[in-house]
């Protein structure tokens, strides 16, 4: 029942937000998409472009089993599309254009990815106020364990929306806090062959004490902490005192993950991707997120020995 879940491939795209008034703009993705897929995608929004680009880089031309399910994690879905539609409807009194409306309500982003890669499993758009990636990961792992799917294409997509002052206001950020947009993807399966990493654990803890007990448990120490140096990422809602308590509990060879991407919603997906592809110093990764007032979630990732040098 408790099959190990392996990470077969990863793929990422990331862009810093370009502040309004700057001479450059957020990069156009059409050329990159054409280069990757050899076709033009008509009438898709930037959110779907980002998703296709990340998913395409992850799949990297590999033919996937048709029983692959898609899990697209997102905090707010196709933001620019939805904002433009609401502005036009409420302010200007224009009814939504059919394609704009369908893109907003229909999970069309999964449709385009599944069509482009000839997938026929389930295509789920999954969200959570904070840490949507961990929510989708939980579902993907459970479905693989139940043989609902043989493999899972799992991604987290964040899109920049304009003006940036509005995006910061919606996210509760102060002016000038850095923003970025990204599309981070993972191909998961229970097959160890050719894997670059494995999900050692993905657990929720009701409070800090339970989290500490878990990290000190035999299973975690045996599987993770005793086996090499560990990289740790705390989400930014965990205060300094709590971080210190957790670091003391880990009591091992750990280093804090240095996150270069200015992501808020998809920070854990970005960090796991960069751990597997760029970080050669550490062999283990622990992502610790605060998912509720008192609850935490940990995602434990281990690099496989048969590491392939993949960097998309």
């Amino acid at each position, binding site marked *: 029942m408790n099959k190990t879940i392996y990470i077969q491939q990863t793929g990422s795209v990331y862009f810093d937000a370009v502040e309004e008034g700057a001479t450059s703009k957020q990069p156009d993705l059409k050329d990159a998409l054409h280069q990757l897929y050899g076709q033009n995608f008509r009438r898709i929004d930037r959110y779907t472009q980002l998703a296709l680009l990340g998913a395409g880089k992850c799949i990297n031309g590999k033919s996937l089993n048709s029983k692959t399910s898609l899990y697209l994690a997102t905090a707010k879905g196709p933001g620019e599309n939805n904002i433009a539609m609401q502005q036009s409807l409420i302010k200007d009194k224009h009814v939504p254009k059919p394609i704009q*409306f369908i893109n907003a309500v229909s999970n069309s982003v999964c449709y385009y990815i599944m*069509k482009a890669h000839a997938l026929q499993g389930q295509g789920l758009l999954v969200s959570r106020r904070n840490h949507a990636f961990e929510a989708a990961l939980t*579902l993907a792992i459970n479905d693989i364990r139940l043989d*609902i799917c043989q493999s899972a294409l799992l991604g987290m997509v964040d899109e920049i929306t304009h003006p940036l002052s509005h995006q910061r206001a919606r996210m509760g950020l102060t002016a000038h806090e850095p923003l970025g947009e990204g599309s981070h993807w993972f191909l998961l399966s229970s097959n160890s062959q050719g894997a670059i990493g494995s999900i050692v654990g993905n657990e929720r803890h009701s409070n800090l004490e339970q989290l500490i007990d878990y990290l000190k448990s035999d299973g975690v120490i045996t599987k993770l902490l005793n086996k090499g140096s560990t990289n740790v990422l705390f989400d930014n809602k965990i205060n300094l005192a709590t971080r210190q308590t957790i670091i003391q509990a880990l009591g091992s060879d750990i280093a804090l993950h240095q996150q270069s991407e200015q992501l808020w919603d998809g920070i854990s997906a970005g960090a796991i991707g960069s751990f597997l592809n760029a970080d050669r110093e550490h062999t283990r990764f622990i992502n610790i997120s605060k998912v509720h007032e008192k609850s935490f979630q940990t995602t434990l990732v281990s690099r496989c020995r048969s590491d392939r040098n993949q960097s998309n």
Partner: protein
Amino acid sequence: MKRSFIAGSGLMCALGNHVADCVNALFANTVAPTRYTNDTLDMPIDMPWYGIQSGRNLDDPCRFYTLLNQTVSEALQQAALDDNAQKNMGIFIGSSSFEVGPSELLYQQNLLTEGPDHAMPMPLESLGNIAKQLGDTFQISGPDFVYGTACSASSNALLGAQRLIKTGVIEHALVIGVELHNLTTLSGFNSLQLVANDAVKPFSKDRSGLILGEACAAVVLSAEGAQSKTNTEHASHLYIAGGASHCDTNNITGTNTDGVAIAKVISEAIRNANLAVDNISTIKAHATASYANDTAEANGLHALFKTMPPVFAMKPFVGHTLGACGIVELVLLDACLKQKRIPATPNAQPSDAALNINVVDNELRVDKNAHFLMNCFGFGGNNTVFVASHE
């Protein structure tokens, strides 16, 4: 591997504001759609609509949360879980519009107070806000999952909950389908010209499209043996036996009318429930009464069933409640089964000979050990089917 039983349910829809009111109105078949009009847009709206008669003004930004909380409260009261079980339960929500209604109203207010150049559209942007709000209100701190897969959203939420209960990750789940009044949905469907002008006529030769409805529905799913011992009055014998979800990439607006993709997802749902096609006793069709959807569903059913079990539909009573329809129609089915009967489906006659689906036109008596196929098909090729079994 634990089975998931319905331990409590709540419902607000055009039929009423509580499950008991809804099921009474369902059998009385006295609720008809009202007219929804809006002449402020560049394409005015004038169409039938199944709205909730809650006594709250549609322009009240609190209406959404009041209706949602009332529905969830009904389900939780019926389930009567102890504090610890409720605290650790998972929350699963399916919707296609989420908080768009309150977001529109807030933006409208901001346009008045801040002016068109400064007001911020989509002030409520996160899809996960609803789960966070419910967790805070009802002191639930288990994992939450929000699904946006068009009309199959709450069916997918149900399957997600059933599967996490099956593997023991959670013991109880609050599963919600919510689709409440908002201008985006109403004007969007109006512009797509998919709306009928009078009634929902599933599989009828006179069918002319869907009629939208708003609804909020909730079920508490509990692992077998974990149901509250005090919950005897509302105890259900209905459990979720299994299901399947596929994406048919034939067309962004719907599944292929040849029915092949529908037959495939139904077949997998039945297999996942450890049943055979012959075990299905009754089919709750998606039955939007749109030309293409009914054609696809009829072709899919004929491809699989040599002898067609009785087919019924709920949308002629409540309208198409979009992402909420999976849970709305499950709650209605559960309430019907407690009365051991299913109502005749109105407006299905004269039937469309080309589709050859004989929708039940007399009340059906229901025995125990029945397996119900529950179909949901949506935009984006989102096809989800689950089996609800009555023991």
